[in-house]
């Protein structure tokens, strides 16, 4: 018997679990897959919280103070991150353009580039999904007064990858820089660039940004700023964030059950009792006092769309589904983005038609909530963090 069972181990579920564990609860997190953190590149967007809060039914409207608390909570949880409430920072996209965000790994903070006149882009040999010429052109556009040049680094340790005709995934490069040999190579390359006359800042794709003290140490000894980049999925930095959160769960004595989905939950008189999980060979029943539903949206598979409707996959809860009107403008608003569960102020699922609370001891958090659009409002990380933290307080 657990105090709390969290269904879905993405950003929202993990934060809920960590907070509840800190409060001394016995927590189990069950997740089908590793969640969408690996897609998100490790930066967390909050968006214009004050404006969004005014939208009726927007998650920011009912989580209230929790948004700001979640912001500082996350910074304290993960010292590799930086950010100032109410202000935006910038990071480089995988193509070398700038984009704004609120919570970012220090390593990705692009602000030093605004002050540099001579920018060197390191080009680690064979790095997958990295396009140096495009990055150079885009950086030049972003910083028209500066001079951008490329610097090829040949890393002999990857000779066998090249021989196999394969480019090297960012995750493999990131891991390598943290090893002893990688560390030595990194130091050598960076010192070489720093020693050249026309360098004032280094852009370095594929560097680890979270939980890699070895690399931090090398870079601390360099006088030039070294700016990392976000990458295409699967993102090494997103995965590192995921791993740092799961480690935290385990360090606090929590348990993670990854790779199996909750098939269904048995409900008695508006209370969830037992979650049924598809283990190998048989079903396992998990009993808990309270539950968090953080199964994500269409990508996390908390919601599935069929030609004629949208379904919530665990409880079969009734959903808010906006009328289909868009669709003409491909990049415009996609109404399905706002589909999801309606909840009360305590994150308990409600019937969208009547407002009646449907489950007393279930708290919904993250992408599965209705009435928000991470793409248009740029608040994917913020809503998931704040609703996750609130769920962690309620568990």
């Amino acid at each position, binding site marked *: 018997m657990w105090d709390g069972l969290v269904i879905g181990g993405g950003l929202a579920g993990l934060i809920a679990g960590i907070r509840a564990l800190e409060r001394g609860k016995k927590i189990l997190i069950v997740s089908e897959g*590793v969640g969408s953190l690996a897609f998100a590149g490790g930066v967390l967007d909050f968006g214009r919280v004050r404006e969004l809060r005014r939208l009726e039914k927007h998650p920011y409207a009912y989580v209230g103070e929790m948004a700001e608390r979640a912001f500082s909570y996350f910074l304290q949880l993960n010292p590799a991150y930086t950010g100032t409430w109410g202000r935006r920072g910038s990071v480089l996209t995988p193509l070398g353009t700038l984009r704004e965000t609120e919570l970012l790994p220090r390593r990705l903070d692009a602000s030093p580039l605004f002050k540099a006149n001579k920018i060197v882009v390191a080009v680690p040999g064979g790095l997958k999904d990295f396009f140096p010429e495009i990055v150079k052109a885009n950086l030049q556009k972003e910083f028209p007064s500066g001079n951008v040049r490329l610097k090829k680094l040949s890393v002999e340790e990857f000779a066998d990858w090249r021989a*196999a005709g394969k480019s090297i995934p960012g995750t493999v490069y990131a891991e390598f820089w943290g090893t002893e040999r990688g560390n030595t190579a990194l130091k050598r390359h960076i010192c070489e660039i720093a020693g050249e006359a026309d360098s004032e800042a280094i852009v370095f794709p594929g560097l680890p940004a979270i939980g890699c003290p070895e690399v931090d140490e090398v870079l601390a000894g360099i006088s030039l700023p070294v700016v990392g980049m976000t990458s295409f999925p699967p993102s090494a930095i997103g995965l590192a964030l995921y791993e740092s959160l799961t480690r935290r769960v385990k360090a606090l004595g929590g348990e993670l059950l990854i790779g199996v989905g909750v098939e269904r939950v048995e409900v008695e008189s508006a209370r969830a009792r037992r979650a049924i999980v598809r283990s190998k*060979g048989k079903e396992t029943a998990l009993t808990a006092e309270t539950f968090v539903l953080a199964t994500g949206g269409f990508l996390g598979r908390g919601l599935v769309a069929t030609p004629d409707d949208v379904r919530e996959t665990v409880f079969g809860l009734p959903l808010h589904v906006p009328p289909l009107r868009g669709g003409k403008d491909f990049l415009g608003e996609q109404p399905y983005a706002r589909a999801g569960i309606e909840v009360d102020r305590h994150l308990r699922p409600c019937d969208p038609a009547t407002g009646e609370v449907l489950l007393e001891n279930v708290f919904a958090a993250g992408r599965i909530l209705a009435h928000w659009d991470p793409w248009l409002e740029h608040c994917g990380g913020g809503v998931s963090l704040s609703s996750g933290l609130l769920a962690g307080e309620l568990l």
Partner: protein
Amino acid sequence: MYTQTQWGEEGGPGPKPAAEPGGDDSHRQECGDPAGLDACVKCGICTAHCPVARAYAPFPGPKNLGPDAERLRLEGVALDPGCLAYCTNCKTCEVVCPSGVRITDMILRARRQQGSAQAESAKSRLRIRDHVLGRAEYLGRLGTVWPEFTNTVLATKLTRRLLQKALGISAEAPLPKYKKRFRLEKGSAAELTSESGQNGGKSVEGTGSSSMGRGAAGDPSAGNGSASKQVVYFPGCFVNYNDEATGLAVIRVLEHNGFEVIVPGFHCCGVPLTANGRFREAEGNARRNLALMEPYLERGIPIITSCTSCGLALKEDYPRIRVPAAKRIGAQTYDLFEFLWLLHERGELKEDFLEVRVPLAYHAPCHLKAQGIGTPSLRILRLIPGVKAEELDAGCCGLSGSFGFKAEKYELSLQIGHALFQRVRQGMREGKFKAVITECGGCQVQIAQGSGARSLHPVWILAQAYGLGGGT
């Protein structure tokens, strides 16, 4: 009463391949239909987590070998079969995949179809090697006939160099030590509680039952004895040939909880055979084991495993065999600690624990993660006063059964386990823990080799807490 006749591979008591249909037919469906293919959203998460793809450049990784290549395979295009052999079947890819794609099914099926065992072992010495490594049983029997001799011989550099030259078994790899064969005597409870660390020379062939003085209780046809207090124990090759003491500890813990433990003369579960491309023999073993289990399964008696790879095979592979017993095996197989946790939840676990003051690190074996039951051993151990257990969470140990014994894969196997060894060494240095606990015998051997740390099955901690003789 059964007689163990595993010696002659084909001479066993196993049934003729059953003619009647039965078991889980999902296998058939999967074979005919590419289900799962469309579920793949091409996110690449699996390959980012695959321990082999991370460490070994030429390995294309699960996305490529599984769902991507499956499309080609369905159209009759085959890939270079050599790379398929580098998949260790650790199942990490399947665990992390957000879409539930059965990646390793696809890879194993491809290996089976392409006969990649032959391709990999084009040279006959490698075929012999796969034959030897595929049969923990053979190697085991060799070792247990005269353990001292085998261990001495296996330990000499010369022998290991010869093995590497002749068979491609790495001279450096940590071959487990061979001990006397695990045997359980009928009515041997008293003996079991005696000092077991010293390989007490029990060697009665046949079904053993630990029931106190109840001679026929091990016989499923004997109607006496309530089925609810009986369990069948599937020890697996590691306990059978390398680590008898742990098997006895498992039995003592179950007995302490009031169970009568039945140990039929099981054969190797088949996992090492599958891993070495000997699919038909693996299925043969499964059939024979199922035949041995059938009478117990019919009476609803649970099958307990203490090896996570055996457990996974019983839960995942055996239900696909087309014999009636296959219908029950998945649901009735429990990992030891999964079973004990159920007892705990029902309030039936004996919790008269003595304090065990020892800081431990826990390594979750890949095949435990793949069972989808979480980490029940940690849950149980944390019920014991004094136990502090930290989860290492540093990925795969790299050995993957016999993978790391192969000369061409030995280095790679250590590289895969590098992160884990580093964490273990660091933790030991800082005095954070004194030993590593993990269910898998292969992981134990590899961790000891890679990091020098003492490693043991978690049942030892529980046995100590019960005052049944300890392991720390």
